[in-house]
Structures are given as C-alpha cells and as structure tokens.
C-alpha cells in the first residue's frame, strides 16, 4: 500500500491558480511516462531530478547527487568503514 517508485522528471508544468490547476510533472521510468501531481511534494523538482511517486502524486524530490550520497554510505558500511 505504501509502495512508491522513483521516476525521473522530464518536464515540470507550473500550475495556474486562476484555473485551479496545480503544478504537475511529466515523469518516466523505463520508457513509461506519466503525469504526476506536485501538490504535496517537499520541493518543486527540476528536470532530471527523481521524484518518489505514490498513487499519482510525487511525495519527494531528490537530485542524482542525493541518491549517490546514500549509495556511497551503503558501500562504506558494507566495507565496515562506518
């Protein structure tokens, strides 16, 4: 139920308050793309960031650098360095 997947941002579409349109993003994963809502995301993503998508909404944005930092820490732990 709390399943959410990381998808890469292709395009960010700013909403329009007058027309009640919230900001959305076009995102892709393995060649499949979809539009997701950005109402509840922690920060607006940039193109090539990753967003975590749950039930049609992006819940978190991360840069490639943030993803790498997390993985580097895993490598250090696996080698018993931390």
């Amino acid at each position, binding site marked *: 139920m709390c399943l959410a997947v990381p998808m890469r941002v292709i395009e960010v579409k700013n909403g329009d308050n007058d027309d009640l349109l919230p900001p959305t993003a076009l995102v892709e994963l393995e060649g499949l793309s979809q539009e997701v809502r950005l109402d509840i995301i922690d920060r607006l993503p940039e193109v090539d960031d990753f967003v975590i998508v*749950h*039930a049609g909404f992006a819940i978190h944005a991360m840069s490639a650098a943030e*993803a790498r930092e*997390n993985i580097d820490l*895993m490598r250090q732990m696996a080698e018993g360095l931390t």
Partner: protein
Amino acid sequence: MRVKDNPLEQLNDKSLCASLVEEINRCLSRPVRIMEVCGSHTMAIFRHGLRALLPEGLTLVSGPGCPVCVTSPGQIDSFIELAKMPGVILATFGDLYRVPGSDGSLTQAAAQGAVIKIVYSPMEALSLARNEADKMVVFAGIGFETTTPVVAATIMTAAREKMNNFTVFSAHKLMPPALKALFQEDLSVDGLLCPGHVSAIIGTKPYEPLSTEFHLPCVVAGFEAVDILQALLMLVRQSEKSRAVVENAYSRVVKPEGNPQALTIMKQVFSPEDCQWRGLGQIPASGLRIRPQYDKFNAAVRLSVKVRDVAEPPGCLCGEVLKGLTSPTHCPLFAKRCTPMRPVGPCMVSSEGTCAAFYKFQ
C-alpha cells in the same frame, strides 16, 4: 532517446548485497529479532529472497504495517454498506476488494449489483465523479501517512472545484500511536525496521519516544535489497552495542523533519480520533477523521454511515500475526480453510499481508 546515468541502478549491485550480508554475519554475536513494520518491506524481503541470505541468528517478524490488514471488520462492513447504496459508486484500491467483512466482501457485493471501481489514485475517483454527475462517488479511504496526504489533496481539489458528488469514507490510520501501543506488551523484539515512505512524510522524530521509552533501536529503511540489508546491519550494530537510537538508512528520501508540505495538507483536512485496529484493538488518537469544514466530502456524514463493532472471524490468528507473536504457518486455518482464493482473514488477502507472503513464497 538520451541514455542518462541513473545512480539508482547501483541499488541492484549484487556484490554490495553480498558485502552487507558478510558484515551482518561478522557483527552478529547473539540471536536478534527484528520487526519490519511495513507491509511493503515484508513483500520486498520475500521478493529479494533476503531471509535465505541472512544468518540463522537474525529473525525477521512482521508488524502491523499493512493498511488493509489492520482495517477493522466493522470498517470493512461500512465500505460494503456504502457500495450497496443505490446511486453510489464505491472507488477503492484493489487490495480492499476481496477482504471479508462480517457478511461477505466487496467482490460479493459487486456480484450482487453494487457498483465498485478499482482505482490507482483517489484522483481517478474524482475524475469518475466529474463524469458521473448523477452518482455519488465514495472513495474508500485506507492507508497510513504515505497515502493520507494524497487523499487530503484530492479532497481539497474537490472543494476548489465545488464538487457535490465526491466523498471519502475515512479509515485512515496513523503509524506512531499504533507502534507505541504495540510495544506496551513485551514482544521480545530487539529492533524496528521503520517504514520508508511513511517516514518520507512524518520524518524520523516520531520514532524517538520508541527508542527512548522502550530502549528499541529504530532504523528507517528503503525497499531495495541493499536498503534493507544496510538497515538490518545498523540495527544489529545497535543491538550488539546495547544502543537504542533512531537512524536513517533511507536518507535519499527521508529527512528528519519529513515532508512539511504534505503534513500541512494532511492536518488541514484530517484530525486524529480514537480508532479500532484489527488485532490491536482500540488505540487513542490513531485514526483520522475528516474535519467538519470538509463535511461535504465526508461519506460518513453525507450518507449517515457509522462503523459498528464486529467480532473477528473465529479461529483466525491475524491479530497475533500483526503483532509478530505468531507465524502465519502456526495458524490452524493457514493454507487449509484460509487461502488467497478463499481468505478468512485480511492478512491472506492483501498483496502485502504476511499470510499471503508466506503462502506465496514459502
């Protein structure tokens, strides 16, 4: 099409998994029992085959983190009652469809003529309401903090659009009060693998009372094999050193403060109330009701539906399974009277239920 560097692909590195398993083996000097709280973790652990990789002394038990599994039979009955109302379309996540209430399931209600639509997002339920103006669309609101802001944002959209035929029946639940209630009992658990996407919303601070009051190591984990192994290593290390703090092994997604935007939207639409959990009983301030200013979008108010007290199915051990006190294979109904095709309890129905996972993978 451009091919881009994807750092997340490194999460499938088998040599990294092997090194983490080796380090867990090296650190573990005595038996340790870890509870994985989240149903998505339960499934990920089976899917990645991690139980077979881990040393014998490291035992994994499942907790109450499958939203369908902890939805009380009374709440299931309310969803069925709503689905059977003339002029109502019930929109639901697929997981809920076959869960038995006291008298049948949504599947059976659909066979008897109720109109039930399975949706991937509450926004699909809202689209359905736009297209079916003469029907009342009710969204079956289940889920923890990952899902609740999504439902809250959908209700706010419906309010902005002045919709008259979209409502939510809230059976949403909060994870930290349930964990606190759970550990009042001695479960002989040495560490908690905390849910990654609930924590993306609530952050890491809500686990601090658990680590201090119950001396329970808590580590937030992601859902790839390396994420889970890293978190297990951190829990083993804490346990070996008799430490009990909150750590974060999913820092690419979870921040200490969580997601303030999602929390604000959730609190704008929902307020806490006492709630009945399957297997855990009544837990203070662990459920979420829709605030009165959004009554127009509250199915319980608009359609006058109340949750009744309903007994658990006789012989079913889902309650014990949800507390990690027994293994599904010890339930007398498991794989006999209770199977995924003919489930008795919810843990056998949900794709994230512990009994369903044991049935599928063991």
